[in-house]
């Protein structure tokens, strides 16, 4: 800390100065801190606590009956969630649905690398000095601004495929000479790809693209000029200048996308409104699973346990990423 310019005055005792400092900071701090404690910080702790109970929310219960609703069950929820047992000599998960929905969540995340690659490609295109580029950038960003509910409703209509009512996508496919296009949202095999296509559309020109564009624009032009003098072609420039210079952006984009992908709020909206998680659970993600337990089935204890597992996944991933991913980043 650098010494601050204050008029010479008898030095107050340290403890009284500290008290004054706290007194002065509190009015600034308190409104936000109180809300933060009540609605963010303590709930995180409470969620961990809830995950150790079998709390069932009775529809018209008040706090008076809380003791009757809550029973401490230690790690039972986690044993049910993550454990397995033997059945006819075979190992069977205690909650096979959880593993299935975890698999769904990870499968749907396969769209992330495609989306990031697409964002980079679009950013490279947008970075050309061409006229009218702002219009394209605006258009690409439109899906990000649109209400997810409206987007999902339109896509449901696009994917629609009933024998007598053919949606836009299948009409186009039939026009291209494909006689039996898939029943996108109604089939186990095609529901997930349909979700990935829709997510790609919604995300490729969004935040990641804008971040990449900002990253591209911050690369010093001299580097390219120097490369030109050395006779580097476009591919060499991309490989040896653009890509390494963008690596901090890539690191940020990958990290945020995977964290967002695990939580999957867009996919939650899609599953909730398009398929209800079906067919036969093919599009149920962990978020929808948590929602169903908490809201539809009132089993908050178990829902909290799934949420804690989701949190540990995000946490583990972030840790690994910071530990190892950062080695790949080229910092100036």
């Amino acid at each position, binding site marked *: 800390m650098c010494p601050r310019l204050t008029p010479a005055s008898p030095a107050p005792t340290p403890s009284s100065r500290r008290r004054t400092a706290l007194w002065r900071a509190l009015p600034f701090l308190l409104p936000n801190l109180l809300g933060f404690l009540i609605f963010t910080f303590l709930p995180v702790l409470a969620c961990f606590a809830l995950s150790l109970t079998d709390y069932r929310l009775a529809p018209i219960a008040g706090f008076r009956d809380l003791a009757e609703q809550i029973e401490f069950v230690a790690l039972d929820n986690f044993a049910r969630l993550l454990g397995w047992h033997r059945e006819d000599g075979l190992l069977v998960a205690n909650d096979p649905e959880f593993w299935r929905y975890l698999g769904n969540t990870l499968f749907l995340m396969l769209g992330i690398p495609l989306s990031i690659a697409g964002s980079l490609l679009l950013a490279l295109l947008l970075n050309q000095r061409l006229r009218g580029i702002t219009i394209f950038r605006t258009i690409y960003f439109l899906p990000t601004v649109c209400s997810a509910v*409206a987007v999902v409703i339109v896509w449901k209509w696009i994917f629609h495929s009933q024998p007598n009512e053919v949606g836009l996508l299948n009409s186009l496919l039939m026009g291209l000479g494909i006689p039996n296009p898939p029943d996108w949202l109604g089939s186990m095999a095609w529901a997930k790809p349909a979700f990935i296509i829709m997510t790609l*559309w919604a995300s490729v020109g969004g935040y990641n693209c804008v971040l990449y564009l900002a990253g591209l624009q911050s690369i010093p032009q001299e580097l390219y000029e120097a490369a030109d003098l050395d006779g580097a072609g476009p591919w060499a420039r991309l490989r040896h200048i653009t890509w390494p210079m963008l690596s901090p952006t890539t690191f940020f984009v990958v990290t945020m996308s995977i964290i967002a992908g695990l939580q999957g709020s867009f996919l939650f909206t899609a599953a909730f409104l398009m398929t209800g998680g079906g067919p036969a659970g093919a599009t149920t993600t962990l978020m929808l699973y948590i929602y169903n337990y908490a809201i539809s089935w009132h089993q908050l204890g178990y829902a909290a346990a799934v949420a804690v597992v989701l949190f540990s996944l995000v946490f583990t991933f972030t840790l690994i990423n910071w530990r190892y991913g950062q080695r790949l980043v080229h910092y100036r």
Partner: protein
Amino acid sequence: MISSSAKRRHALLTVIAYLALSAVGATMILPLAWMISTSLKAPAYAVEFPPRWIPSEPATVQIDARECKLAEWTSRPGFSVAVLRYSPDGALVQVIAPPARAGERLTLPEDQLRTTREISFHWENYAEAWRARGVRVREAFFGLAKRVDGFLVFYLNSIIVTICITIGTVFTSSLAAFAFARLRFPGRDSIFLGYLATLMVPAIVMMLPVYALLSNLRLTNTYAALILPPMFSAYGTFLLRQFFMTIPQELEDAAVIDGASPFAVYRHIILPLSKPALATLTTFVFLHSWNDFLWPLMVVDRLALKTLPIGLAHFQDSYTTDYHLLMAASVIVMLPVLIVFIIGQRYFVRGIALSGMKG
């Protein structure tokens, strides 16, 4: 001097770049255009194969070499029919004569008819969606309004909720960020660490206990439940604190020597210098709460309290197969945000770039 072959190559690359940009742009626009197109179609023509982009419907049909308008008569010796209705399958006609077959209805398949189509935009779909009975609200706004159109209620709710959340977030987190960035007090760094720690936690982890708390206090289905919990995420405080840290200390010192109170420093030095960061936070919070689906879905099930996203979801439940109405409702929900975005997009895009720089 640039050689002419290099020039030609440059022109070729430009054309390719434009083609690629336009192809992607068309893909982005298509679903939105399809939504608008469907929203303007007549109910009977919302579903057609092959799909038509410009809403149109048959205006005349040729029966026995005569062009007939809707509900017009046509006759030939011993046989006359009236055109009742057109459908994508063909024309429904009712036999007038001979008397033996009078009243009989036949569908003349379209491929045997020669129809001319007329472009017609059914703007009334929007009014119908807006006034739909399935989302009519009996009583809203603490009994101030009775029998209100659903989307009017959803709109007002969204506006109330979003404005409160945005103002609340920007105001309280800028105050707290000021304390973290510019004041010294015991425990400052550990409290801030607490804020940082929650940044990585999935939102659902906080939502579950808060939902339980609100249910037990019987506070679900209130504006407070919609507004208060989303107001205090650590994100806003974090973003602003990072920005406030970059403002030079000398400016503040000069004001302090002149006897400025911490609040004066906050109000007259820090805030005016932080306009870009404040604008970024405002846009993010606004957009996020305007489009938020999960939290309102959890805490509100009374129609009178629904915001636009969950109101639209409710509408979808009631009008699953009325595609023209569904699309009109979606446009109603989407349009204002699109307009705001297109007007302010420069600002917005700069904001994202700013928020990413810290990474």
